[in-house]
């Protein structure tokens, strides 16, 4: 794709063109489909990455829930590049792609992402119009049916954490949820990539109680953040969302877990505040490299614990 660069922030048009080109260049490993359209009518492209052939268990990963978290879509692109480039030369990656499919949604909140490139770099929500309000947008990560609009969410359309009029009111969250529901039997892990604050979180966030899988998810998180830190010594905290940061209802990881996707995690990538949402491009490579190690660890766990 013209102008695309894995170590730069790419605008939506460039990312969309990249999804087409990486699929065209790697037909045995990558295919592109469309799971819906956004409020403003943009296509929501999904990449399926894995050795083509028989149906396999899958890991679903999305990026770009919150428009201003630019490092997140950068990671999804990086992940696909690494998977494609290392297939056939790296035994671990080859095994993962031979035995698992990875569904990658490079940008969930595409309209919001476009808006951060054109009008307001600090925009967070979707760009849908709200009834009886002049305020625009819903927080997609408060819009899922998991304790929807209770704690840590707002019913005020002007709030940055507005939960929407009903669960999955947003075309983007509905498309994502519909896809996961349609592949529920094969999707064994759900990963959602956010920024910032360097955390690896797992359910629950909408309530303080622990999941029945808490011990295992905690153990995986501990090992995954150790893997992540092994490269550049970047320190991540980990734990259930409610206990580690705060109660927040309507999040996609809680929703996926309650649907039955046991291995459900939220990454909050670099940094811890020096740059916040303005992480320089010069940190994309290191951030993605270290995150890749953690994702790879989780994927291996999923593969070995079907």
């Amino acid at each position, binding site marked *: 794709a013209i102008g695309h*660069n894995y170590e730069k*922030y790419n605008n939506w048009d460039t990312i969309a063109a990249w999804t087409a080109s990486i699929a065209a260049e790697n037909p045995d490993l990558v295919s592109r489909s469309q799971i819906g359209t956004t409020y403003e009518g943009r296509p929501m492209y999904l990449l399926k990455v894995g050795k083509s052939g028989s149906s396999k268990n899958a890991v679903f990963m999305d990026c770009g829930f919150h428009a201003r978290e*630019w490092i997140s879509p950068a990671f999804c692109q990086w992940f696909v590049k690494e998977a494609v480039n290392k297939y056939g030369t790296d035994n671990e990656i080859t095994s993962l792609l031979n035995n698992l499919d990875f569904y990658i949604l490079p940008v969930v909140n595409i309209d919001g992402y476009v808006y951060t490139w054109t009008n*307001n770099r600090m925009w967070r929500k979707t760009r849908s119009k709200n009834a009886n309000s002049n305020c625009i947008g819903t927080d997609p990560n408060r819009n899922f049916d998991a304790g929807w609009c209770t*704690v840590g969410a707002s019913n005020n359309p002007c*709030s940055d*954490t507005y939960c929407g009029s009903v669960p999955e009111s947003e075309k983007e969250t509905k498309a994502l949820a519909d896809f996961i529901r349609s592949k529920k039997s094969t999707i064994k892990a759900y990963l959602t990539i956010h920024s910032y604050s360097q955390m690896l979180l797992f359910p629950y966030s909408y309530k303080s109680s622990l999941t029945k899988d808490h011990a295992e998810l905690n153990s995986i998180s501990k090992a995954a953040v150790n893997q992540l830190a092994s490269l550049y010594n970047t320190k991540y905290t980990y734990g259930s969302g409610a206990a580690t940061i*705060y109660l927040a209802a309507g999040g996609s990881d809680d929703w996926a877990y309650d649907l039955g996707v046991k291995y459900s995690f939220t990454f909050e990538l670099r940094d811890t505040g020096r740059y*916040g949402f*303005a992480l320089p491009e010069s940190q994309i490579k290191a951030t993605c490299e270290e995150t890749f190690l953690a994702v790879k660890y989780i994927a291996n766990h999923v593969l070995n614990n079907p």
Partner: protein
Amino acid sequence: AEPHTFHGEKVFRVIPKNEEEVEFIKSLASNTEIDFWFPDSVTQIRPSLHVDFRVEFHQVLDVQSLLAQKGMKYEVLINNLELALEKEFDNNAR
């Protein structure tokens, strides 16, 4: 609308020590346009949890003054957000 620019906008960090300071931050947010970076919203603020928030240029002095009056320590994480956003594009291959 014209694209939003961030000249002179600052990002602050405060760590409320107790409920009184939490309430102060909440009152600050109710009287000022504050963009919470961490946590996501004012309802999630609690003692000992750091709070990062962006303040628009025309309210920066007021916020600094109110924090000082209250005797709350604060850190300026980003002094001029517009400059930080320009530096974000530091890959010269562009």
